[in-house]
């Protein structure tokens, strides 16, 4: 009998549109091709309304703009917690979140699924919370002796209360060039590279526009930026080391990742589409491959990631130091292109992710979360 998998996408996030592509192209389609599942698409609008229906599996509904009419006519989904999880009147066996960013990848959705008591794909709630906070993730990495570039952080309120003072404080603590980032956003949204105090101030304003927490990091010299997709629960399994190729903007921003068609190819296999251009696999100086994979796996474990994730690392090619940069519990399009290059088809990848979800759920089910007591009898 086919298992019923609900796939969640869209959401109240700056990465709403990217999530649609991830869900439709890299999750729903391969799950259908696997032939073992009945798929229920659940689209969460930018206003937070949950709707469902088979038409939501068709990208043309979104690309044509007809989704707006569809939303108006669609009835919101009814969710039932009955010791399991039902959508409308359909029992769901496994939930597959394909929502990037706020309310999806940040642990919010995982919290709902934990409460419902249903297996779900990808990182659990606690590791998602840590992973989606760039400050927390770096602090956890540091506590586990994983190198990170020097950083400071401040809240939006602190910055707005004394913009000049806070800017000066950051400038006095760190050395240029710096990267200013909203702490909770992905896809390089709101990230600015700065080299002067004036640019720093403007960049802090932009980051504060997006987020209530801002991180400022020193740039790594002699930089090679790499990323490693990983799947697994207890035994993390890496795919290939990939190097995003920056353009004149000097770093891999949202436009490069998702909008621009490409740039100059400087070596390796050319990857187009949602991931822009990259070198896959990257050719690194001797000995660095192992160091990169070790750091990626150590970070994955330290942050408690399960299911899947992508660890972004910065290499100082001169000192051969590998720094942890960021981690992404739900990489765009689940980084299927990298897994394909590593010999894992997208159908096999989603199958394995579903199995990992069931395995974790089974493991967690053996934990006692309640106990009998005579506490109430005294009242």
């Amino acid at each position, binding site marked *: 009998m086919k298992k019923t998998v609900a796939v969640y996408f869209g959401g109240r996030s700056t990465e709403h549109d990217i999530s649609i592509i991830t869900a439709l192209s890299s999750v729903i389609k391969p799950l259908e091709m696997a032939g073992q599942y009945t798929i229920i698409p659940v689209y969460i609008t930018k206003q937070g309304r949950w709707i469902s229906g088979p038409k939501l599996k068709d990208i043309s509904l979104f690309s044509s703009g007809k989704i707006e009419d569809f939303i108006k006519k669609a009835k919101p989904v009814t969710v039932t917690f009955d010791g399991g999880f039902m959508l409308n009147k359909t029992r769901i066996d496994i939930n597959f979140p394909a929502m990037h960013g706020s309310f999806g990848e940040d642990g919010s959705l995982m919290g709902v699924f934990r409460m419902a008591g249903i297996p779900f794909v990808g990182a659990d709630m606690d590791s998602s919370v840590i992973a989606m906070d760039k400050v927390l993730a770096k602090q956890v990495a540091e506590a586990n002796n994983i190198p990170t570039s020097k950083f400071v952080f401040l809240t939006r309120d602190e910055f707005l209360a004394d913009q000049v003072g806070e800017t000066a404080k950051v400038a006095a603590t760190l050395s240029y060039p710096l990267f200013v980032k909203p702490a909770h956003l992905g896809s390089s949204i*709101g990230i*600015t590279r700065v080299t002067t105090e*004036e640019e720093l101030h*403007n960049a802090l*304003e*932009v980051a504060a*526009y997006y987020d209530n927490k801002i991180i400022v990091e020193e740039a790594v010299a002699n930089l090679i930026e790499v990323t490693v997709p990983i799947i697994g629960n207890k035994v993390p399994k890496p795919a290939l080391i990939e190097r995003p190729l920056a353009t004149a*903007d000097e770093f891999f921003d949202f*436009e490069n990742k998702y909008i621009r068609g490409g740039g100059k190819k400087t070596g390796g296999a050319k990857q187009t589409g949602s991931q822009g251009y990259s070198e896959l696999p990257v050719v690194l100086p001797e000995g660095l491959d192992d160091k990169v994979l070790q750091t990626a796996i150590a970070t994955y474990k330290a942050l408690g990631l399960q299911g899947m994730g992508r660890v972004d690392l910065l290499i100082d090619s001169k000192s051969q130091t590998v720094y942890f940069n960021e981690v992404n519990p739900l990489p765009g399009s689940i980084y299927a292109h990298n897994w394909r290059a590593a010999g894992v088809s997208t159908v096999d990848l989603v199958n394995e992710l579903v199995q990992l979800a069931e395995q974790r759920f089974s493991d967690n089910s053996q934990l006692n979360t309640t106990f009998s007591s005579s506490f109430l009898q005294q009242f």
Partner: protein
Amino acid sequence: MKVLVNGQLIEYKKEGQGNAVLLLHGWGTSLASFDQLSQHLVVTGHEVFRIDFPGFGASPVPNGNWSVGEYAELTAAFVGKMNISKLTAIFGHSFGGRVIIKGVATGLLQPEKVILMGSAGIKPKTTAKMIAYRTVAKTGKAVTALPGLNKMSKSLRERLYAAVGSSDYQQSGAMKQVFLNTIREDLTQYLPAIAAPTLLLWGERDTETPLADGKLMHAKISKSELIVLPNAGHFVYDDDFDGATKAIDRFLG
């Protein structure tokens, strides 16, 4: 790169070194429409600033019911934010030209020189032919809303609207009200107040902002010169890049 200007998030690009120039794009395009021109200006020794106007490119839609005046205020605030003490020249194509006309005439923008390329700003006179076209377009909208005609309605409507020069309106989405505010405003009265030397660069084949608009601007702006490129249309700086840059280089000295 983004910057916050008057509470509005703006995508911008800053390239090169030298005299500061600012490029303002047309309706429905973005700063990317100046890629080639910008490269030329960088090579000829300029610090080139480009922005995506709110509602275009990577800049979010404006936080209010904007018209040309708000865009001019935002542009002036951007110049201040970038600490551009001396703006050597400001370039505007089409809608960007509208913003410059209003901004310079009201003193918000104070460039040394102005370059208007296929600039909008002159409100076309309503002719009997236009009224007829508009009627057709309105009727067309009603007709194409009928059951059975829905599937072809978009392309049909587009053709009808294109016939009355409203393809921008058709495609303006969330910016429809801003578009209407924009085209309703005739900026002819502001032209005499532009005192800076002004280059009017026009494509003879321009059908969006016809050459007659360029001639009227030439008559109203005292220190203006009109250069007409015979083989160019509305995107004069791309249609005849060599001709346009030759005129620009000479004008900027």
